[in-house]
């Protein structure tokens, strides 16, 4: 079984983002970037499945600018076998990314495609589902447990009401939740080894995909600021304020 894992480079989750003064977006220059957190879970799961002898190859793919390749290199350092970097400048909408991934799936013919359930920059939560639609494959979104059984997966999904278990036939798409596993850290020797693993570079323009934007970002602004609060002297005052001033208890 071959697993393709899609990873995205985003602003690190610990960075306080700043909105650009001209309202065109958020500041990304000189800001720490990392792999989108649930994409790390996706890589980890694929590598674990391979280590358990149930997959033969793990291929990491990213779609993005030159530096996006760092996320593929990181995936290689934690156990992916090789990488693919689809080069494109600017920000693509999930629909465009899923069309690009469809082309990569056509070429690589993986049995499974894993990715994070959502990117923490645009918070769209679309790409996995869109890719499954384009391929007409089953989708298991928000996965918190995956059991590989021959040509099937049994996947437990995190839903609002609790947990749902479904069985999907391969080939299939799985989008990963943070509860799926604990991503490992790359060891220094593995980081060195990863530098020798191959990354194929493909220009998005060679894939014959319409990636033109359908949405216009009119402006990006700071959310409304909270009014400054007060400090209370003791617990009794706090409870009294909550009861009589804020009227929330």
């Amino acid at each position, binding site marked *: 079984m071959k697993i393709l894992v899609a990873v995205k480079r985003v602003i690190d989750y610990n960075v306080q983002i700043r909105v650009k003064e001209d309202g065109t977006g958020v500041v990304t220059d000189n800001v720490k970037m990392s792999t989108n957190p649930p994409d790390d879970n996706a890589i980890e799961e694929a590598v674990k499945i391979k280590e358990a002898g149930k997959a033969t190859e793990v291929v990491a793919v990213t779609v993005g600018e030159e530096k996006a390749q760092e996320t593929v290199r990181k995936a290689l350092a934690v156990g992916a076998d090789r990488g693919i970097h689809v080069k494109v400048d600017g920000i693509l909408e999930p629909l465009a990314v899923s069309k690009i991934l469809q082309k990569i799936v056509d070429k690589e013919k993986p049995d499974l495609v894993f990715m994070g359930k959502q990117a923490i920059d645009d918070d769209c939560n679309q790409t996995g589902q869109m890719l499954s639609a384009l391929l007409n494959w089953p*989708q298991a979104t928000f996965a918190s447990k995956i059991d590989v059984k021959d040509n099937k997966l049994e996947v437990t999904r995190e839903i609002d009401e609790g947990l749902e278990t479904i069985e999907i036939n391969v080939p299939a798409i799985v989008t990963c939740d943070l509860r799926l596993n604990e991503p490992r850290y790359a060891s220094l020797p593995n980081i060195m080894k990863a530098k020798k693993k191959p990354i194929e570079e493909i220009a998005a323009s060679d894939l014959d995909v319409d990636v033109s934007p359908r949405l216009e970002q009119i402006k990006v602004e700071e959310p409304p600021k909270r009014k400054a609060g007060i*400090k209370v002297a003791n617990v009794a005052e*706090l409870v009294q304020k909550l009861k009589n001033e804020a009227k929330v208890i």
Partner: protein
Amino acid sequence: MAVLLIAEHNNKELRPFTLNAATAASQIDSDVHAVIIGQNSADAAKQLSELPVVKKVLSVEGAHYENFTAENFAPVIVKLAENYSHIVCSANTFGKNLMPRIAAHLDTSQVSDIIKVISPDTFLRPIYAGNAFATIKSNDAKKCITIRPTSFDPCESTGGSAPIEKVDASEEFSNTKFIKREEIKSDRPELGTARIVVSGGRGMQSGDNFKLITEIADKLGAAIGASRAAVDAGYISNDHQVGQTGKVVVPDLYIAVGISGAIQHLAGMKESKVIVAINKDGEAPIFSVADYGLEADLFEALPQFMEELNKLNTIQK
């Protein structure tokens, strides 16, 4: 053209967020039709027909719709989409799972998790876990929109009498099989929709100490949250995590105990209506978003808090 609302239900009755999505749909266009797909869902369809904002109900029945599988739902809606300008549903796990599958089939760029309808083609949505708001205009002929339920009030649930029209089922998607659903039965409200959330951070120092939080949560009828630091330290399971990589919550009251207020935590709770911070470090960033800050040792403050609550004659639930 009218707006098509996708109803969320459990085959017996509507799920509450359908009413919030109906409000959002009616802000896009007053001509709202609602589709309900299920198995033996006539009662829920009738409920839907009673929402005054809904002008027509489309009911689709089939055994393969019993468990709301997106692979089975999407083809039905894609077929109906021909007659509609917008497809709308809630951005909860039901809608998040389903809508992009519809959008891709329609070759439409979805607008996810909107918090405001500015005009029929322009919407406000949070990005970076609410650390920025983006105004997005869709240029697609058909628009697929998911709405954040807590940003729209529920619509009236009685008084309407829309006609219910049967629509043919589509074929079954055979590569996905439902096995089981385990609904978490808890006396506590769900974290994502609770009116009050009490959260603990690394300051709790151990999982055992979370019982101080549990007691207060039980007294207030609140959900229990946690910071990523508390989850990473193993004090509590990560389904309680509030923050950019956990759940985003918007309760009426959020009580942060022993939480310093890392950026990623603030992103998940700073839209709460009233925020309380209890922390012994007076410089902790959590105080910058708190309406009421108490600089105190939580191991003294929490038992006192419980005592004070016990003194109250009534507590809102």
